[in-house]
């Protein structure tokens, strides 16, 4: 048999199992549990290791970007914000958040790029680029140990409602919603793939499958594709809204960036 076909069938095998298992409908939302608790000890140990956690390579690169004055405005992030350990403490717990400047809810990556554009005179770092992953991981890790607490009222309310609708919307050829997997089947094992609640408190994460760091939006795209749905572009308002709802679902979970996942 053709090798690529074999590989696709291996994957289709998992997907078929997903499709078979999810017949029932919605159950109430649960108490949030971090993806960490669904990992094996080896993965947990790698995350907890303050040297060997590979995500720290990106965090360290983020520190370099934070201090970089070689930008059009000559101002590094540090020139304006000062020491990140105090200036950025708690910031990641509040994002996505409504931005008066943008006129809508934006996520942390977009806030960082807003500063790049408006205050450093530099073009945006593209989504999933090493610098954007690095600076986002660096800013996020300053909130390590602090609980997620996003605002979902006032100007963020509409965005939140859209994100919630997205989460419960069945989609793709397998006709599954995020909730079908991450609420109804959290804790279940499907042929080797164990399912977590799909929480965001560890992002950006170092994912063994990717062998690299990835953003919330890359994860959403992966999960969309797993059910054969066409993903939205990274940074699309659909995904930012979804991220807002997702962060709210995990209200109170401590930030653990850079998390390590399977």
């Amino acid at each position, binding site marked *: 048999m053709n*090798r*690529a*076909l*074999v*590989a*696709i*069938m*291996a*994957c*289709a*095998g*998992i*997907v*078929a*199992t997903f499709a078979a298992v999810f017949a029932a409908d919605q159950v109430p939302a649960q108490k949030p549990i971090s993806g960490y608790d669904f*990992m*094996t*000890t*080896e*993965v947990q*140990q*790698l995350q907890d290791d303050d040297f060997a956690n590979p995500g720290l390579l990106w965090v360290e690169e983020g520190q370099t970007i934070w201090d970089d004055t070689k930008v059009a405005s000559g101002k590094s992030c540090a020139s304006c914000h000062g020491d990140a350990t105090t200036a950025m403490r708690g910031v990641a717990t509040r994002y996505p958040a409504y931005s008066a400047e943008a006129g809508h809810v934006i996520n942390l990556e977009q806030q960082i790029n807003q500063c790049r554009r408006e205050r450093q005179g530099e073009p945006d770092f593209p989504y999933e680029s090493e610098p954007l992953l690095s600076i986002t991981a660096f800013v996020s890790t300053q909130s390590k140990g602090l609980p997620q607490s996003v605002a979902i009222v006032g100007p963020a309310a509409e965005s939140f409602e859209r994100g919630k609708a997205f989460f419960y919307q069945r989609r793709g*050829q397998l006709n599954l919603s995020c909730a079908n997997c991450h609420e109804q089947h959290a804790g279940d094992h499907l*042929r*080797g*793939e*164990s399912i977590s609640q799909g929480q965001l408190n560890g992002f950006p994460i170092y994912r*063994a*499958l990717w*062998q690299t760091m990835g953003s919330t939006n*890359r*994860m959403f*795209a*992966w999960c969309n*594709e*797993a059910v*054969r749905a066409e*993903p939205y572009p990274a940074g699309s308002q659909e995904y930012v809204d979804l991220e807002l709802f997702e962060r709210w679902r995990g209200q109170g979970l401590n930030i653990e960036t850079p998390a390590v996942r*399977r």
Partner: protein
Amino acid sequence: MMEYDNSANWSRRGVLAGIGAGVMLLAMPVRADDASVAQAISDTFGDTPRQDGKIALKLPPLAETGNTVPLTVTVDSPMSDTERVKRVVVFANRNPRPLIAAMMFGPKAATAEFSTNMRLSGTQDVIAMAELSDGTIWQAQVRVLVTVGACDSLQLRY
């Protein structure tokens, strides 16, 4: 390499849909057989006889991902100028390339021990062989169950 035995029941239409969705996967590598493992070992150590013992291999009995499997090897040997471990070579007997890495201990090494992370394409045996300064070769072998191999997990475009 197939963990997902129900793939045979998956309809042709389903498979085509998978391709249609542009799901990009792996150039499915061929797993090594006993002959190629034996070849890799003799390429490294020639036909010197090997004995069991002296090596402690620390690996998780069950790895949920084959992409990052932590490995610690400790050889029970002095590390003096005259009596020491020269090198440790690690093999995985069903990886497409059985040779994983070769570690050399220099005169400034305090112990014959190291840790690293390896890739396993699926459930298989990990073999470590140590060459001592007296020319003897020692080996140890440990089985690791891999639920999602480095080659057969859900490799989508993202």
